[in-house]
């Protein structure tokens, strides 16, 4: 068996052998469903109010264009889901490297044919696969309902891609944080802090020049993710998320070198 493949299989077994994976999946699916149905209820109420007050029923032209399934339900739900992932994913990534270090099993892994690079790649692959599963579980409610509302499958695919890439970027940040500590708590808190800072740099606009603000905005997760949510798939945004993932991997790999030579 290829050593990396053996590691990937073991990582899956470890991930699904712990309650954290199931709890996180359930939590994200539950939060998404709650938010979705709440927005759907609000949308139905607004429609009812318009229909009853204009006396034209649901077919009337008097319902404004901005009261639609997309703007009133789907987009806000995706926005909230994006932020929910920032809170949820570090809970999954916190244990990946930190647990190995705290148990001392990282030494055992290093004594095998696995190299630091294959260890990092194996662990990232498994976490990314879990993120895709998490996205599928959380996306299924809104996607099923929204297709009934007339939103195209291509648009939904773009949103799903954006959501997944967004999740992968947060996971990469969380994994990089996990690689530098033996404390899962420190890994989770530092992952949250970095992901929240990267989420949106709107708060910094008051303190920096316009040019700097533009640069910061181009680094923000929110803007890139929002573009996918609008149905736009651009190579620049895909490259951005891939870049965040690669930087996360490189930083995690660097942690092994640092440990070998450092104090």
């Amino acid at each position, binding site marked *: *068996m*290829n*050593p990396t*493949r*053996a*590691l990937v*299989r*073991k990582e899956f*077994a*470890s991930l699904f*052998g*712990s309650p954290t994976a199931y709890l996180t999946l359930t939590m994200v699916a539950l939060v998404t469903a709650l938010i979705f149905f709440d927005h759907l209820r609000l949308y139905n109420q607004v429609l009812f109010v318009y229909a009853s007050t204009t006396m034209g029923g649901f077919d009337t032209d008097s319902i404004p264009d901005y009261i639609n399934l997309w703007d009133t339900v789907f987009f806000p739900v995706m926005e909230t889901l994006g932020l929910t992932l920032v809170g949820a994913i570090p809970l999954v990534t916190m244990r990946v490297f930190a647990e190995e270090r705290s*148990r*001392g*099993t990282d*030494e*055992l*892994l*290093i*004594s*095998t*044919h*696995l*190299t630091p690079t294959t260890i990092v790649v194996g662990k990232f692959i498994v976490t990314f696969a879990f993120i895709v599963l998490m996205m599928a579980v959380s996306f299924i409610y809104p996607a099923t309902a929204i297709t009934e509302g007339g939103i195209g499958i291509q648009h939904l695919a773009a949103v799903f891609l954006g959501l997944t890439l967004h999740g992968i970027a947060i996971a990469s940040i969380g994994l990089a944080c996990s690689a530098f500590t033996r404390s899962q708590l420190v890994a989770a808190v530092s992952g949250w802090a970095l992901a929240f800072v990267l989420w949106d740099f709107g708060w910094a606009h008051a303190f920096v020049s316009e040019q700097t603000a533009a640069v910061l905005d181009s680094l923000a997760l929110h803007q890139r993710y929002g573009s996918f949510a609008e149905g736009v798939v651009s190579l620049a945004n895909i490259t951005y998320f891939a870049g965040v993932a690669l930087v996360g991997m490189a930083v995690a790999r660097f942690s092994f070198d640092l*440990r*070998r*030579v450092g*104090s």
Partner: protein
Amino acid sequence: MAEQAVQPREEARSESGVGIRARGLTRRFGHRIALDRLDLTIPPNQTFALMGANGAGKTTFIRLVTGYLLPSAGEITVNGVSPAADPGAVKRCLGFVMETSRLYPELRVRGFLRFMGGTRGLAGADLEVAVEAGLERFQLGDVAKRLIGNLSKGFQQRVSLAQAFLHDPPLVIVDEPTGGLDPVQRGYVQEVLQDLRGERTVLLCTHDIAEARSLTSRVAVLASGRLVATGPTDDVLADDADQTALFRATGEHPR
């Protein structure tokens, strides 16, 4: 008394076995020196005890052999190969038995052995044969489907031993193999180690003088990162008076 810090000139290399050689090996952690210009030769096919108090540098030495750490100065070679320069070559001939707490409690015994065999390049029928042989050799058949975390410490140590022998390595590093075990399990582990004498190179880290005396042919004693004594076990650990003096120097009480 012990043969004091001898510096053998012969190369620790053999056609039939794997030796370890350290020359001027130094490892610093910030201002603290964990290993200080260590010269040590571990000959092939011998069971070699590495002794010393906590913080003496034993674990650092093991980590340098496995390639987990890099030396600050000096060199270490396994069968003439530096773990830093060619980690793959060193890992191929290395089995590592860690303390029992350093396993995966969420994995089942057979699954863990399959995983460890896979990480050592075993596949297909070879992997299955190695896993079954490991289960049989270390009498783990009855607990093969149980979670490692639910096993007693003695059985966890057997699992740790089994994973180290899956790929039949010529060099086995054993770190505190009997710490915290009951007398029956301790006896079992010592029996396993006894069977390895002359069969392959075994580097045994232990605090237990009786264990070192019964299992090893040569010994090195470290204190504050320095080699204070090395030589045949029977000479270094010859009588009680010398042992007490030796271990008092290392800050450790013999037991």
